[in-house]
């Protein structure tokens, strides 16, 4: 294994597990430190730079950062990153005057965005400061897309949506509410736009075609459409017994909404055992805390009607055989079971649908009838037409849509400049020492043994009184103060200079997690077997230094469970180890050098 090239921007970026896992590459440790200092507005702006909607995401993000968090490998639970984001959003002061100024002199380029969801709003957010004129077409009377129609207000209050969407719209976006695009050809031919961004989401819920479906239609609802009707107050009640089919996050929103509309018994029916559930663990917990019963191994067979009215559903009782790796290798039906129901909500998935895109516009569709979209540039096969969010690659989540929006904005900018969209602005990495003096480091490197704090919730008695009572209260000041200290500051990197090392062993002796070894160089796989502690997590890099001057050995660091305490640098007599803050430069449209 040759020595590690830490000058590649990705090396230290990967060490910051949360930031690497985040599709938008939010500088998580940086904003957590700012929260620790009480600089909530600064923390909010660090967030907003990459994820645009900190208040929204601080409540409903799918949090890919948390399973990645190094703290979860050092002890049991990751840092409550998502809920700390909300702390920044809840306590920020006025920040709009610190956003880039919108030029009054426009650049003459007009951009159309279809659908006022998170992807289109991000495109507008990135392009408005560059002088573009952005028009967003939205079929409904409110902006926000699925953030407003599919996420219930008891999880995401309208006020939070209004504020963060308003910040973007107030940049001067021409927001055309209630204007559905029924023909892309018409828009392309008559709109006079230089580029079109399709951010129309994945608005079509999947059907369950089993016997009785049509006859029971009045009491069988498609999950996302049903949630939408609740959001617009078209639906205000539901039957006593409700069955939810499917066990994804939409199902969790459906079951909890049903309780708030007056259902007395809500059961979520899952085809497979719990380890196969698609819903996030915390959403399952929240639903179960509200007495929703999740029934496993029940496969829908038919809707049962009496006198033309739905009375329940018949399910096949499934049995599964798992292999050693936990995969299903065989299944069989062990019997049938009837569950009474007044209403059934289908939450078994959603897909994108483009009946309004003519198929002869030069936009190629693949065999699943979805447009071919370049995964880097987000351009379709017709230059100047871009896709992003769920419209691009099917349902993901908000944070992915935001990143799609950023990347599409870069492409739109390049396209309008007449440059190839494949010419992406380069990524970068800056490092700066955190050493302030003898034994002084400008970050809190004491390891806090505190366990993850739980976010307080509104009591079970209170929360059902109205449909829009936000259940999560957010961290208290004391909880936030303790939780921020759990962050390991992975962005304060251990940077090694082999030329300075005198091979005294001090760093190796002091490292609390045994991640350092000086040893003979060798191939990575073999090297992993002879380190001070076994380096079995191959998803985490080994840092290998250049040859050391006295013995020609190499310094090896297993990044896996390094707690970034800085003791290696503190104990190093020659400053061969230093703790340096890394800034990942993940470019946006504004970073393009013209």
């Amino acid at each position, binding site marked *: 294994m040759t020595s590690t090239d830490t000058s590649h921007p990705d090396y230290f970026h990967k060490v910051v597990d949360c930031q690497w896992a985040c599709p938008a590459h939010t500088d998580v440790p940086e904003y957590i430190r700012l929260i620790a200092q009480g600089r909530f507005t600064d923390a909010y702006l660090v967030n907003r730079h990459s994820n645009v909607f900190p208040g929204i995401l601080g409540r409903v993000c799918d949090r890919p950062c948390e399973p990645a968090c190094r703290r979860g*490998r*050092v*002890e049991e639970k990751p840092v409550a990153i998502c809920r700390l984001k909300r702390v920044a959003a809840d306590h920020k002061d006025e920040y709009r005057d610190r956003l880039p100024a919108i030029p009054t002199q426009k650049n003459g380029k007009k951009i159309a965005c279809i659908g006022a969801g998170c992807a289109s709003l991000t495109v507008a957010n990135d392009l408005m400061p560059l002088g573009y004129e952005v028009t967003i077409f939205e079929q409904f009377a409110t902006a926000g897309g699925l953030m407003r129609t599919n996420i219930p207000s008891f999880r995401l209050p309208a006020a939070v949506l209004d504020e963060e969407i308003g910040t973007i719209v107030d940049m001067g976006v021409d927001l055309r509410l209630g204007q559905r695009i029924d023909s892309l050809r018409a828009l392309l031919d008559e709109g006079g736009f230089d580029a079109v961004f399709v951010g129309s989401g994945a608005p079509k819920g999947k059907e369950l075609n089993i016997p009785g479906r049509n006859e029971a239609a009045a009491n069988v609802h498609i999950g996302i459409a049903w949630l939408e009707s609740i959001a617009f107050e078209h639906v205000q009640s539901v039957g006593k017994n409700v069955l939810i089919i499917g066990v994804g996050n939409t199902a969790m929103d459906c079951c909890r909404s049903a309780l708030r509309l007056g259902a007395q018994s809500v059961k979520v029916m899952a085809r497979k055992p719990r380890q196969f559930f698609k819903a996030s663990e915390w959403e399952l917990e929240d639903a179960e805390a509200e007495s929703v019963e999740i029934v496993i191994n029940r496969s829908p067979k038919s809707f049962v009607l009496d006198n033309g009215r739905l009375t329940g559903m018949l399910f096949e009782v499934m049995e599964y055989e798992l292999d050693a790796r936990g995969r299903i290798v065989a299944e069989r039906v062990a019997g049938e079971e009837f569950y009474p129901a007044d209403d059934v909500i289908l939450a078994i998935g959603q897909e994108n649908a483009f009946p309004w895109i003519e198929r002869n516009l030069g936009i190629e569709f693949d065999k699943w009838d979805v447009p071919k979209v370049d995964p880097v540039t987000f351009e379709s096969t017709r230059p100047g037409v871009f896709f992003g969010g769920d419209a691009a690659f099917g349902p993901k989540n908000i944070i992915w849509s935001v990143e799609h929006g950023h990347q599409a904005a870069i492409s739109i900018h390049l396209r309008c400049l007449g440059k190839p969209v494949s010419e992406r602005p380069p990524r970068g990495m800056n490092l700066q020492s955190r050493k302030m003096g003898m*034994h002084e480091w400008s970050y809190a*490197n*004491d*390891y806090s*043994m505190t366990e993850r704090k739980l976010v307080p919730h509104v009591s079970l008695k209170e929360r059902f009184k109205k449909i829009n009572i936000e259940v999560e209260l957010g961290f208290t000041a004391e909880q936030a103060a303790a939780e921020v200290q759990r962050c390991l500051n992975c962005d304060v990197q251990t940077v090694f200079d082999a030329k300075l090392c*005198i*091979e*005294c*062993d*001090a760093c*190796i*002796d*002091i490292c*609390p*997690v*045994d*991640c350092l070894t000086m040893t003979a160089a060798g191939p990575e796989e073999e090297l992993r077997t002879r380190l001070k*502690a*076994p380096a*079995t997590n191959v998803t985490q890099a080994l840092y290998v230094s250049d040859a050391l001057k*006295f*013995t020609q050995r190499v310094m090896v660091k297993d990044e896996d*469970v390094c*707690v970034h*305490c*800085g*003791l290696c640098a*503190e*104990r*190093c*007599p*020659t400053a061969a180890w230093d703790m340096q803050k890394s800034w990942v430069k993940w470019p946006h449209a504004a970073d393009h050098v013209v």
Partner: protein
Amino acid sequence: MTFIPKPKISHPSLPRNELGLTRRDYEGALSTLCAGCGHDSITAGIIEACWGISVRPENLVKLSGIGCSSKTTAYFVSGGHGFNSVHGRMPSIAMGANAANRDLYYIGISGDGDSLSIGLGQFCHAIRRNVNMLYIIENNGVYGLTKGQFSASADIGSKAKKGEVNQQPPIDPVLLAMNLGAGFVARSFSGDKAQLVPLIQAGLKYPGFALIDVLSPCVTFNDHEGSTKSYAFTRENYEPVVEADFVPKQREITADYAEGEAMSVMLHDGSRVLLRKLAADYDPTDAHASYDYVQQHIAQGEYLTGLLHCRPTVATEFHALNRTPEQPLNQLPFSALNPGSRQLEKLMARYR
């Protein structure tokens, strides 16, 4: 010196020894020595060694005198017994404790000042009496705690930090110990734990006086160009001549060695020290041959390292020689410890 405490958190897959303890359970207080001090590496070596042979922390006695080295007993096995004695007087305390309780492991930590200047007499007599202990000299050639004056182990020609050249001949603890008849004499280097850890394990198990002289660079006062005890000079000039493996009694010696290359020395509990010579013309079990060999190489400016001399000395071990009871004094009944006034009268009568 470090102000950030070492976090209590440890590697999730840290191995456990026979007692179910991890290496971290053998740590002590936070070191206040200079960053990069060789002594801290020796401390880490002792931790590793004690963990490796599953020493019960409460069965370890840590003794020291005065000096940077002598501070280090606080930095390992906080569950052990510790005694920080007067300057150079650690051997007396060790001997007294050992006389009272032979069931414990005794580890004395000293420095070149503590052992070769003020405590030289004590050091010699501990060897002479063959006290069953491991005696580690953390040897850096300077008085670090008083800002870097030459110690009695400084080599002729070695330069002080400000340029002064030492002209007095050094006392070599290895030659001295061999000369006085020690049965276990080793030299090692703080920067070579692969060599040091088995030596510490063997020294703890060795029945009798075991000396390890560990070259331990003083990063603050003796790590410059011209010093003969710097990291750079030691790396260039130390030469392992004998590799010692400590083999616990449960483990078979499995590796194959060419004839004459490997020899094993049995320790009293059935464990063994396996010696592998790296130099063909050298017999580490022969007292005279090893003395001559080491002396010749010192004359050539080479630091030989490894278990330079090892031979059984069970017959002359302190307890054997003095026919002490097998049980520790604190376990003997009062009647055995105190023969009573009648016996005392009889005894006194002999001198009247």
